[in-house]
């Protein structure tokens, strides 16, 4: 059974605008995916593509306007089965409360480990899981570094023994050396606790390191999904190629930019949403919406020109 299964997930936001009636933002527009138990799916894309909206829908901070989410086969809200780790640990924790309080809260809310001694023991255990010692318990977020604080939010997410963690840009606010520590912690916890991850990130190198599978998102839709190693080694969709080429690396010139800007999600372009910026676009791309369809090596691709042999990178 899959850890997470999303079917035709949609989120449309209605925004009020004076004349001409309300407008609709198509933040997520028909996205389906599956995360097999014990695996990590990375959803990558640039700001505004809808990836964080998916994260929020998965943990039901936002209700989808269409589609279904199954967590370990079950429909409906189960906050113990799936938990969120957000990007910014400073805003995720109450500045005025101790770290002990942050870790006790989920236990109290869900009625877990009743009794003072049992609860205290569980809090210490949680802290140990993320490699912090008890000295942190009485400190407040203000006196703790960003990397340690992000460990605390991971520990808090683990308090209710979830099977799935949704990691929304977990390392984006951290320094290089601290980032490495958190990546190692996530690898280790997944192994030890048999977790599944949905990793939302714009940091390609982090996705590449952690993910088993990857989904590339552009303007509310997936354009390419598949086994991470295959997609990263030989991207097929023109957008995936542009995105991966833009990752700066030593000894490489900055990539040739894509023409134009990301179109508005209020009025997404007809046909393939990438056609306005695509170097390979044909007239047909503006008319027909390409379906996400399987290609030879098991990946799914939404491109009218998918059948053509991939050009060498």
């Amino acid at each position, binding site marked *: 059974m899959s850890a997470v299964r999303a079917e035709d997930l949609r989120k449309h936001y209605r925004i009020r605008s004076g004349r001409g009636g309300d407008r609709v933002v198509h933040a997520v527009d028909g996205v389906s995916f599956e995360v097999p138990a014990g695996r990590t799916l990375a959803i990558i894309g640039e700001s505004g593509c809808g990836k964080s909206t998916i994260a929020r829908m998965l943990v039901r901070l936002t209700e989808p306007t269409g589609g279904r989410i199954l967590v370990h086969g079950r429909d409906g809200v189960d906050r113990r089965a799936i938990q969120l780790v957000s990007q910014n640990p400073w805003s995720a924790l109450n500045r005025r409360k101790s770290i002990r309080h942050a870790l006790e809260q989920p236990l109290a809310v869900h009625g877990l480990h009743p009794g003072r001694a049992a609860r205290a023991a569980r809090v210490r255990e949680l802290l140990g899981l993320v490699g912090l010692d008890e000295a942190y318990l009485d400190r407040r977020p203000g006196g703790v570094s960003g990397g340690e604080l992000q460990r605390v939010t991971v520990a808090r997410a683990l308090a209710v023994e979830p099977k799935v963690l949704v990691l929304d840009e977990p390392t984006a606010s951290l320094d290089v*050396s*601290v980032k490495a520590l958190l990546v*190692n912690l996530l690898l280790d916890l997944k192994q030890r606790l048999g977790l599944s991850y949905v990793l939302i990130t714009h940091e390609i190198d982090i996705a590449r390191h952690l993910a088993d599978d990857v989904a590339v998102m552009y303007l509310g839709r997936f354009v390419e999904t598949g086994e991470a190693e295959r997609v990263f080694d030989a991207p097929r969709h023109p957008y995936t190629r542009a995105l991966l080429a*833009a990752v700066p690396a030593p000894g490489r010139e900055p990539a040739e930019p*894509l023409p134009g800007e*990301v179109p508005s999600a209020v009025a997404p372009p007809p046909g393939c949403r990438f056609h306005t910026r695509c170097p390979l676009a044909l007239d047909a791309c503006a008319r027909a919406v390409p379906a996400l369809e399987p290609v030879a090596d098991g990946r799914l691709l939404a491109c009218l020109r998918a059948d053509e042999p991939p050009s060498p990178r």
Partner: protein
Amino acid sequence: MAAAPETTVPETTVPDSTGPDTTGPEAAGAGAPAPGGSPLLSVRDLAVAFRTRDGEVPAVREVSFDLARGEILGLVGESGSGKSTMLTALMRMLPRNAAITSGRVSFDGVELTALRENGMRRLRGDRIGLIPQRPMTSLSPATPVGRQLRWHLDGLDEDGRLRELLAGVGLGAVLDRLDGYPFEFSGGQLQRLLIAVAALGKRPDLLLADEPTTTLDATVQAQVLRLLLELRDRMGLAMVFVTHDLGVISQVSDRIGVMYAGRLVEIAPAGALFDAPRHPYTRALLEAIPGRRRRGEPLKAIPGTVAGANRLPGCPFAPRCAAVVDRCHEENPEVREVGESLVRCHRAEEDR
């Protein structure tokens, strides 16, 4: 920007000031060419400290480097390493509770630390441009973008001047949208507008860029980096480019300086720094990048934290260093020349 009140009085806080200032503030705007071969910017033993309730906290210490015309120096370091403080010190725009406590900064023959505020003001914008980290918060949200461009740039109403300026940063398409407000533009567009102001409007000799692409998406970032490189080639602009992103810095820099706890621990040509890093901190940083490991393997992290390192005697990296020896805790290493690198490490010459 230039209108911000300035309270730093460096004249009185520079203990080793070298005699009276002979150039005077008037020479600042004259743009006298430097003698052949001399650097555009020369920083010597610069130190900056913050006054806090717990006394003076050093933020930058013993930083020295030269920058030639048309050269791009990348400064890389983690948060708290002092790289942004360095930049604001060069602009003499430090916050009220911070001051340059020693050292010299010479820009095209003018000693900046000895310059009066009105002389400094003449340099800012005109000869030293700044690109900020967040384009959105550097513009007034309540004023049309076109009007803000006019605040900073003279002669914009002349025929074709505005068109030329915007085309220079690849923004020809927004020419008819300049009555719009900042929120109607994307982050990449705003950053390119600010680059147009800083680099093309006044044609400065030196551009200081503080994490200019950190808030941008990867594809937009590539566009801005290409633009900066092109401006350098076209106008011979020199640049100090501050970032925490090792990938970005490798793509834009001629030379790279690595900062740790307020000190410049290594400076080397970009290729040499990545191929043969000499300082243990540089090595550790490069090894912590995910790209260098196989998928799913643990990354090599740096143990410990940087906290308090700028107050320690000896080498600030000693508590976290894999190659530490007793001497490192007692004696701060002098700068050594090893290969193409200038390194502050007692063991820099050893082949490890």
